[in-house]
């Protein structure tokens, strides 16, 4: 089959969860199909500035059609966002949203209009940006929407009302995303596939890495160190855990975007490389992922690959759902963080083993390829 993947950014040095998923999907599908990518010339999602040359490019052996960003994120986007999400406003205000948010790439839409029907299936990544919100309605009869939707206010805006009724199939990252979308849009009749992700086996790690930390339990956090990711909440809970007599070390690995306490039991590592990441995951007795918004929680899967159990807040339906399905950890709420951590430390080997087995089954390339194949089968005309 001929398959087109549409995504707002695409490139070897493009970071982002849905962009990464798009690239993985394109590469995996290309083992059995002819896959091309349609995207913009942008590299970053904050300005959408033209970075790559427009025209035809190649990445991982696949043809990438890049279309210029005619308008990036508008300078007053924050105002537009506040206005349409929090204040009384008009339909016309909501219809401004896509353009103000960017990337506005009319040539990409005209490409779909002229050439979209040459593909058997078109996979659209991320509901929120114009390439999908305005592009999918051009070829709905062969479209799959990989929405990567969160429970966020933008999901209620006018440009998305029809979008979620039109695709021939949905690819969701988790069952929780499916439940959210079906609850919001009453579109349970549209067939779907829960995609999850496929992963390479974990690389070998440095056994000596553990000795960098004090004896006693080692609890790791991996990701951006910021309030947005819930690290402030994690630190408050860690403090309470220690005050109640808990012991151990909390290691924070990732770009630091907030003030961190100076104390012996909290080690701030800053950004770590891949080797250090895997060594830290393997050395840790538990991984905590405190964020409330997470579309997949890939770091949980990585922890399970090396047999490390995890702790997640029960308020995050996605990560709590992953933990419930795998049995690879515990979800905490309110004041139960200390008890939850104690439970994980007490039964860590068994939980880690369950997590490892679950990832081996669910996130193998074979299983992921099968799910992608089913999605394409549902979407293709």
């Amino acid at each position, binding site marked *: 089959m001929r398959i087109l993947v549409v995504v707002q950014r695409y490139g070897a040095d493009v970071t982002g969860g849905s962009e990464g998923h798009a690239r993985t999907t394109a590469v995996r599908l290309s083992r059995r199909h002819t896959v091309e990518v349609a995207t913009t010339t942008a590299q970053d999602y904050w300005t959408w500035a033209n970075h790559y040359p427009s025209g035809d490019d190649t990445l991982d052996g696949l043809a990438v059609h890049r279309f210029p960003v005619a308008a990036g994120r508008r300078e007053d986007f924050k105002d537009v966002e506040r206005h349409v999400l929090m204040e009384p406003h008009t*339909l016309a205000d909501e219809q401004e949203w896509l353009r103000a948010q960017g990337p506005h790439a009319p040539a990409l839409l005209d490409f779909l*209009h002229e050439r979209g029907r040459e593909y058997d299936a078109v996979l659209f990544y991320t509901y929120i940006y114009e390439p999908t919100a305005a592009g999918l309605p*051009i*070829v*709905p*009869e062969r479209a799959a929407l990989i929405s990567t939707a969160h429970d966020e206010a933008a999901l209620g805006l006018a440009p998305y009302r029809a979008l979620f*009724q039109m695709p021939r199939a949905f690819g969701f990252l988790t069952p929780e995303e499916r439940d959210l979308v079906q609850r919001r849009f009453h579109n*349970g009749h549209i067939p779907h596939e829960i995609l999850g992700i496929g992963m390479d086996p974990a690389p070998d790690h440095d056994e000596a890495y553990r000795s960098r930390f004090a004896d006693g339990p080692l609890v790791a956090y991996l990701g951006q160190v910021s309030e947005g990711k819930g690290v402030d909440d994690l630190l408050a809970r860690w403090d309470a855990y220690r005050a109640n007599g808990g012991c151990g070390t909390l290691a924070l690995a990732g770009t630091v975007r907030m003030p961190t306490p100076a104390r012996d039991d909290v080690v701030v590592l800053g950004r770590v490389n891949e080797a250090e990441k895997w060594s830290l995951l393997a050395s840790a007795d538990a991984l905590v992922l405190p964020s409330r918004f997470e579309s997949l929680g890939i770091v949980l899967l990585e922890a399970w690959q090396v047999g490390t159990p995890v702790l997640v807040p029960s308020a995050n339906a996605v990560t709590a759902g992953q933990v419930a399905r795998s049995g690879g950890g515990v979800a905490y709420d309110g004041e139960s963080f200390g008890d939850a951590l104690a439970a994980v430390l007490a039964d860590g080997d068994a939980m880690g083993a369950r997590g490892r087995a679950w990832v081996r089954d669910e996130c193998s390339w074979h299983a992921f390829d099968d799910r992608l194949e089913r999605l394409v089968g549902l979407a293709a*005309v």
Partner: protein
Amino acid sequence: MSKPKTLVVVQRYGDGVAGGAEAHARQLVNRLKPHLDIEVLTTAASDYRTWENTFTAGIDWVDDVPVRRFPVLRQRAWDFKLYERRAFAPLHTLEDERTFVDAQGPYAPDLLEHLWRAGHDADHVLFFTYIYYPTVRGLPLVPERAVLVPTAHDEPALGLSIYEPVFHAPRAIAFNTEEERALVHARFRNERVPNDILGVGVEVPDDRSADRFRARFGVDGPFVLYIGRIVESKGCRELFAYWQRWRTAEPDRRIALVLAGQAEMAIPKRPDIVHLGIVSEQEKYDALEASVALVVPEVLSSMSMVTLEAWACGRPVICDAASPVVWGMARRARGGLAFRDAAELGEIVGLLADDPGAARRLGEAGRAFVARTYTWPRIVGTYLDMFAEVRARNGESRLGLRTMRERAAASV
């Protein structure tokens, strides 16, 4: 129990509004109003060529139904045809299509604003005709409760990308005919959207008199009847050409072509072509009663009301074999014959005139077809089922979900 709230969106509505789809909307509203709490959302325009605001914007009442009229902010662009040509050209952009839809009108953004705010209070929103601005821009605002009556036929606009959401996003589609459904499914591949054949009910009076017609108009002898505007777009040019060619080849036969309707083109002046002008409803049915058959030369249509009325009167139809809808219906109904050229038109007219038994058999088959498909009790019942399914889906009823799935599966 309160009745389900229903919004009906249509480009024009009310007295003095001519047009098949608009008349269809009003008839249906009047049939559905005992069962639903209906409000019509429309424009202040009555003429589709100008969209001039001839009605007063605001709340109006038509047949005891509230009608909310919104002003048309731009009259149809004088250079509309230019935008149309650009959008229909093989190489055109999406911007050309958007410009075409705005220029075609009726451009009434306040209607959209209202639909966006109030649409969620309605249980269902019924959209009439796929092609105009209120549906193109309005349906995507309430897709989960939208039911579309597309009245589509094979025309260039149907090929535009801008209409994809109109056909893929609604919760259900009410087609007028099997042929319209086949056309839309072939074009859009939207078989998954639940749908049914609805159309309008056909009711003809029992009191129909051939004698009254002949006395009133002084027509004697056998004749075939044409009803409607006498205009090239309805196939009248071909009809006249074929008729004359055949009569030249077969001058002795005594039969006439009778035309009922307003003439918008020259009618050949000959003794065997009789123009009645505009006739009343009663005169129309009397004329059908007196006729050998109804001739329907129109090739492009989503529905032919006069065909259904002829059948309801037990008369056969003679149609153009190139018409997907009329000939498709006639074939399924076994209620008529189709011609491809002048000789075939003559053959068919001669056959039906000479063999009243054959004409009667075809006419009766047509009557049975109309009774099966195009009666108000069936149509109203089917609409109410469709609406109940829309409500069930949006209320997450398991029963509703199952029914919708079965319907969707059955229609693929």
